[in-house]
C-alpha cells in the first residue's frame, strides 16, 4: 500500500532540535534526492524520543535501528551504507555503557525500558467506557482468582509479601493495613477509595480513573473480600466530572455483568460500590477528615488512634486506600507478590506514577520503577528543561513535600530516600523549577495554598502557617531581616511537631527544604535586598543603559505612571521612587537600553 519502503525518523524534540536535527533532515533529504530515492524513503521529524542525552537521534524503520549523536554530515553515510547497501553504520549505534557492545534495535536498549506501566497498563490503551475491553485485557480475572482459589488470609499475605506501600503519600504497607481491618470484628465494614487528589500539579489518580476505572473497582472488591466488607465507597472530588462520569458507567457495566452486586461468580460474595463527592478540600485527602466528610460532617481530621481500621466510616472498621494503590492490586494478584517485589528498591517495591509539570519539556504522566533517579525522570523521560534554561529544583510531594536541588539529581526515588533528602514521595506530583524561579516566592506560593486549605481546627496550622506566609511576604518585599530567617525556621519546626494532622505536620516542608538548599537566595533577599531570580517585583530596579539609549521617547510614552524623564535624543532616566515595575518600558524599547538590576 505504501509507496515508501523505508522511513527515517529524526527526533525534533527541543533538545535534538538545538543540536541541529533540522540540518540532519535537510541533509538526508538532499542525499536521498541525489541518489533518486526520494520516492521510496521518507524522512520525517518526530516528537521527543526522550533519549536527549544521546541526541540527536535518527531511527530507521522498519528495522528499528537507532542511531545516536548523529551529526548533519553523517547523513551521507547513513544513506549510502544503511539505505542503499543495507549495512548498519556501527560507529553511530548506541553502545551499552556496561558491555560496550553496540545495540541497534531500540527494543533492546535499556533506555527505552525506563518506563514500566503497571498501574497505567490500560491507560491510553483501552476504551474506559467499555467493560469488554477491560475483560479482554484480563480484567476481573484477579477477582475471580481471589474468590475461587484464595482465602482472605492468603490474599492479604500476597499483598503484604508484595511489599506495596500506600501510594497516597505516607507509604504505609497496604497488606498490613488490610490485615488490621480484617482483624477488627464487626457486622459491617467498609472499603474506601481515596480519590480526593488535591496536590497542585497532580493528576495521576484522575488519569487512572478516566483511563481505567475498572481496575480500581476490581481491586476494591478484592479488598472487600480480604477484610470482610461488602460495601465500597469512592470519595472523589466534584471537580473531576469526567472521572465521575466514567466511574458511573463502569459501575453500571460491572453490575450488569454481575461483577459487582450479589453472589459474584456464584461464590456467595457480595460487594457493591457507591460514589461520594467531595468539594475539593485539600484536608479531605487525610483519611479521618475524608471519613467525616463522607458522614456529612465537617471535613476535619481527628486524632489517631482510633485508626479507621478500628472505627472509621459510621464507626465501623474501614480500609482507606488511594486510587493508584488499588489500581496495582489486580496485577499483584495475577502476577504474584514475587514478581511485584522484584521491581523497585528494597524498601519501596513496584512502580510509581508521577505527574510531571512545571518548566519541563515533556509535561505528562509517567510510571517508573522505584529507584529511578530524578535525573532520569527529568532529563531522559521529561526531555529536560524548557527553553534551554538551567535546572534549579524539583518540588516533589506537592505543598507537603520539599524542593530538591541539583545535588539530589542522582538520588534514586523511593519513599525513604526522598525523606532523607528532605522531601517526601507524596502522591506523585513533580513540579520542575528553572533558574527564573525564586525560591522565596515559591515557598510563599505553597504556603498560600496550605493557609487557604487549613481547616482551622488546631492552632499551629491555623495561626502558624499564616505567620509563615506573612514572613515570606515581607522577605519578598525586601522588608525581611536575618532574624526573620531564624524565625521562619523555628516556627516551621514547631508547626511540624505540634500540628494535629498530616496537613499541618508537612506544610512547612517547602520552607524548610528551600531554606536548606537555597539559603544564599534567602540571604540575598534580606541582606542585599535582591532577588537573584528576578521574580520579586519590590526588589527589582529598572535602569536605563546610557550606552544603548537613543532618546526615542518610546519608553516615556508607554510608562503608565510617568516615571521616565529625558529630552528627545538624549539619554532617559527612570525614577525608582515612582516606577511601579510593570516592565512596559522594557518591552517597548527596541534598543535593549532598559535592564533589570
Amino acid at each position, binding site marked *: *500500500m*505504501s*509507496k*515508501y519502503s523505508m522511513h527515517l*525518523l529524526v527526533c*525534533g524534540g527541543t533538545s535534538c532540535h538545538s543540536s541541529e536535527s533540522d540540518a540532519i533532515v535537510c541533509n538526508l533529504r538532499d542525499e536521498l534526492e541525489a541518489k533518486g530515492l526520494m520516492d521510496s524513503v*521518507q524522512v*520525517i*521529524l*518526530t*516528537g521527543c*524520543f*526522550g*533519549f536527549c542525552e544521546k541526541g540527536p537521534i535518527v*531511527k530507521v524503520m522498519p528495522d528499528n535501528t537507532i542511531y545516536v549523536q548523529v551529526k548533519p554530515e553523517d547523513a551521507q553515510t547513513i544513506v549510502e551504507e544503511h539505505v542503499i547497501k543495507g549495512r548498519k553504520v556501527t560507529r553511530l549505534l548506541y553502545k551499552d555503557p556496561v558491555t560496550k557492545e553496540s545495540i541497534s534495535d531500540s527494543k533492546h536498549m535499556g533506555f*527505552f*525500558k*525506563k*518506563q*514500566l*506501566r503497571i498501574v497505567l497498563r*490500560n*491507560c*491510553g*490503551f*483501552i*476504551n*474506559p*467506557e*467499555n467493560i*469488554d475491553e477491560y*475483560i*479482554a485485557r*484480563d*480484567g*476481573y*480475572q484477579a477477582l*475471580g*482468582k481471589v474468590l*475461587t482459589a484464595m482465602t482472605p488470609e492468603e490474599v492479604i499475605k500476597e499483598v503484604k509479601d508484595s511489599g506495596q506501600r500506600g501510594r497516597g503519600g505516607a507509604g504505609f504497607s497496604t497488606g498490613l493495613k488490610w490485615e488490621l481491618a480484617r482483624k477488627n470484628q464487626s457486622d459491617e465494614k467498609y472499603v474506601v477509595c481515596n480519590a480526593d487528589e488535591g496536590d497542585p500539579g497532580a493528576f495521576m489518580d*484522575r*488519569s*487512572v480513573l478516566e*483511563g*481505567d476505572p475498572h481496575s480500581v473497582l476490581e481491586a476494591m472488591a478484592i479488598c472487600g473480600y480480604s477484610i470482610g466488607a461488602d460495601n465500597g465507597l469512592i470519595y472523589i472530588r466534584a471537580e*473531576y466530572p469526567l472521572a465521575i462520569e466514567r466511574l458511573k458507567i463502569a459501575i453500571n*457495566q460491572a453490575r*450488569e*455483568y*454481575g*461483577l459487582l452486586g450479589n453472589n459474584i*461468580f*456464584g461464590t456467595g460474595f457480595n460487594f457493591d460500590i457507591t460514589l461520594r463527592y467531595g468539594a475539593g478540600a485539600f484536608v479531605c485527602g487525610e483519611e479521618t477528615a475524608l471519613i467525616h466528610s463522607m458522614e456529612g460532617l465537617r471535613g476535619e481530621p481527628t486524632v489517631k488512634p482510633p485508626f479507621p481500621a478500628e472505627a472509621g466510616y459510621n464507626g465501623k472498621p474501614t480500609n482507606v486506600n488511594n486510587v493508584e494503590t488499588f489500581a496495582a492490586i489486580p496485577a499483584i494478584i*495475577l*502476577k504474584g507478590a514475587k514478581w511485584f517485589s522484584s521491581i523497585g528498591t528494597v524498601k519501596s517495591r513496584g512502580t510509581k506514577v508521577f505527574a510531571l509539570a512545571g518548566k519541563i*519539556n*515533556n509535561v*505528562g*504522566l509517567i510510571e517508573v520503577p522505584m529507584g529511578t533517579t530524578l535525573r532520569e525522570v527529568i532529563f531522559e*523521560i521529561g526531555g529536560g528543561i524548557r527553553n534551554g534554561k538551567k535546572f534549579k529544583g524539583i518540588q516533589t510531594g506537592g505543598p507537603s513535600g520539599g524542593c530538591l536541588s541539583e545535588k539530589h539529581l542522582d538520588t534514586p526515588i523511593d519513599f525513604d530516600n526522598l525523606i532523607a533528602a528532605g522531601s517526601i514521595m507524596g502522591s506523585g506530583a513533580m513540579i520542575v523549577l528553572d533558574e527564573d524561579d525564586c525560591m522565596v516566592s515559591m515557598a510563599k506560593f505553597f504556603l498560600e495554598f496550605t493557609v487557604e486549605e487549613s481547616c482551622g481546627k488546631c492552632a499551629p496550622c491555623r495561626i502558624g502557617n499564616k505567620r509563615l506566609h506573612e514572613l515570606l511576604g515581607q522577605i519578598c518585599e525586601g522588608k525581611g531581616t536575618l532574624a526573620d530567617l531564624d524565625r521562619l525556621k523555628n516556627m516551621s519546626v514547631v508547626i511540624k511537631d505540634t500540628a494535629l494532622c498530616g496537613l499541618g505536620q508537612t506544610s512547612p516542608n517547602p520552607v524548610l527544604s528551600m531554606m536548606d538548599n537555597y539559603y544564599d537566595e534567602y540571604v540575598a533577599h534580606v541582606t542585599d535586598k535582591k532577588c537573584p531570580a528576578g521574580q520579586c517585583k519590590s526588589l527589582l530596579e529598572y535602569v536605563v543603559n546610557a550606552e544603548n539609549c537613543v532618546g526615542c521617547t518610546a519608553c516615556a510614552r508607554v510608562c503608565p505612571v510617568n516615571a521616565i524623564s529625558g529630552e528627545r535624543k538624549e539619554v532617559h532616566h527612570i525614577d525608582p521612587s515612582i516606577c511601579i515595575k510593570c516592565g512596559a518600558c522594557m518591552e517597548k524599547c527596541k534598543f535593549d537600553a532598559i535592564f533589570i538590576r
Partner: protein
Amino acid sequence: MSKITSLADLKKKREELKSGLGIRTKAIDPENVVQMKVAMATCGIASGARTIMEFFSEQLERRNVAAVVTQTGCMGYCYAEPTIEVKLPGQDPVVFGFVDLKRADQIIEKYIKTGELVDGIIPVNYQTIDLNV
C-alpha cells in the same frame, strides 16, 4: 448483557473478546481495518480531542476508509495533546501528537491512505506489563 456467573464464564468471555477488543459491534475483521484511538482524558478533551475524534469518525466514513475510531484514556503525552494512535492493518501502532484539523486531514490523506508518515509522531518510550494468565 448477560451475567457472568462463574470464573469459567469470565475466561470464556475474555477469549471471545480478545480477538476483537471492542470492535465486535462492527462485525468486521479488526485486522483488516484502520484502528484509531483518541486520547480522551480531561487534558485531551481540553485541548480539542473531541473535535478531532468527531472529525475522524465523520471524514473516514466520508472518504471511504474502513476504520474503527474509539476513545481511550490518557496516553501520558500531555504536552502533545491532542494525541491519537493509529494502527494500520499488519503494522505497529503509531502515535501522533499535536493533532489539529490540518494534521488530522494529513493523517488520513497521507498516512492512512498511502502509508506516508507525517510530522508529529511521538516515539513510544515505555513498556507495559502483560497480565496474561
